């Protein structure tokens, strides 16, 4: 889309920065998917593996930061280049938080396996998970292609996740009120998991805002 730099290495530096973000994104996307699977079918070895991924994600976060710092020192980027250098630092932060929510979800699978879970609520969770994975996938594509329209689509989906979260909370309250279920602990855990997915949706939206900012220079957070 854009013209190449006269200094070819500048393009390579920016490409590598982008590649690290995509690597991080792919990892946390899998973390979210795999953590969701642990809610209905707990596997301690798999949960440990999901938790261990955190180290790789943190390592990549640090690498993004270091690369951006070096790029600023060497190239003194301006305009779109500066945004392409600074945004990854923020995006990496958002991805790391998503990873944390995936970890938290996986850990709750351990508690959920001790009691019977409410299948209807679990199904709502799966729906939320699918939705936020879709958002995360789309926002990574939007970032790859500087596609601000796709980024806008991701931002629009945040409300859907919020609605799913609210509906889930309502359902849990109804079940608890009617005392139709004896497994209040698992219901509360599922509510907390729902909150994790709601936050993941927020982080995906934040990334979408950075994608918008890279191309346009416009900070949507400031204009809200």
């Amino acid at each position, binding site marked *: 889309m854009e013209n*190449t730099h006269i200094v070819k290495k500048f393009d390579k530096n920016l490409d590598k920065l982008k590649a690290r973000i995509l690597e991080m994104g792919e990892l946390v996307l899998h973390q979210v998917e795999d953590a969701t699977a642990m809610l209905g079918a707990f596997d301690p070895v798999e949960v440990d593996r999901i938790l261990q991924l955190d180290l790789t994600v943190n390592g990549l976060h640090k690498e993004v930061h270091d690369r951006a710092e070096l790029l600023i020192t060497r190239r*003194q980027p*301006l*305009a*779109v280049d500066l945004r392409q250098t600074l945004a990854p630092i923020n995006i990496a932060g958002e991805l790391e938080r998503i990873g944390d929510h995936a970890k938290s979800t996986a850990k709750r699978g351990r508690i959920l396996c001790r009691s019977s879970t409410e299948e209807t609520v679990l199904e709502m969770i799966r729906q939320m998970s699918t939705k936020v994975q879709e958002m995360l996938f789309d926002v990574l594509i939007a970032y790859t292609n500087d596609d601000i329209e796709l980024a806008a689509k991701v931002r629009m989906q945040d409300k859907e996740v919020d609605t799913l979260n609210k509906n889930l909370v309502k359902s849990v309250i109804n079940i608890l009120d009617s005392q139709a279920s004896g497994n209040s602990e698992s219901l509360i855990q599922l509510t907390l998991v729902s909150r994790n997915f709601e936050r993941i949706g927020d982080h995906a939206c934040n990334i979408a805002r950075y994608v918008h900012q890279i191309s346009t220079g416009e900070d949507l957070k400031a204009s809200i």
Partner: protein
Amino acid sequence: MVDPIISARGVDIFYDTKQALFDVDLDILPNKVTALIGPSGCGKSTFLRAINRMNDLIPSCRVSGSLTIDGQDIYDPAVDVVALRAQVGMVFQKPNPFPKSIFENVAYGLKIHKLSPSKSELQDRVEWSLQNAGLWNEVSDRLDQPGNSLSGGQQQRLCIARAIAVQPKVILMDEPCSALDPIATAVVEDLIDSLRKEYTIVIVTHSMQQAARISQRTAFFHLGTLVEFGDTKTIFTTPKDERTQNYITGRIG
């Protein structure tokens, strides 16, 4: 809205038959630093030199259109060029002190423009100029030494002192830091920022970072045309024209 101090309308500049500037409209606002940027040969220095008629020295150079300072036509045949240059001072890329003492370098303009009638007044004026150029503390005990005995950065500040001694309205600077080390550059940049309280500064620079650091307004020239002109922040963060973006980010257009 503040009135511009310098106003260009439809300015074309030719060297013989070759046109160097095409239809430039540009307003320079008072007490601002305006940076002119662009690749070599884009016309930015030609425009700068047109403001105090330095181009008069080149016989083949022809200027058309309107270029005014405080509403007065700079190219009106009745304009006294020496008086114009007292209003519009200039600092060059390479420090060019006269082969005279530090004192005489600063006093020179005051003498030729007969701006300091008495000796004590002349001394006061020289001290004031050196103070304002941030050089006084370094040279006050050796004013009789040759100007070219100073370091490069000091020589450039001496040239700035010489320029401000006659209290011009505008100071033109043509890459004033390109021959200086980073420390001397920082000192001159700090000086430029303090000078803009009293003067209007127009600076040509090849350093994008310098333009971003010291100017409030930036004009980007390309192939003899003014492509984009606006707030420095906008030019260096969200330029409108793709040619500006390519230039400031070092891309192949």
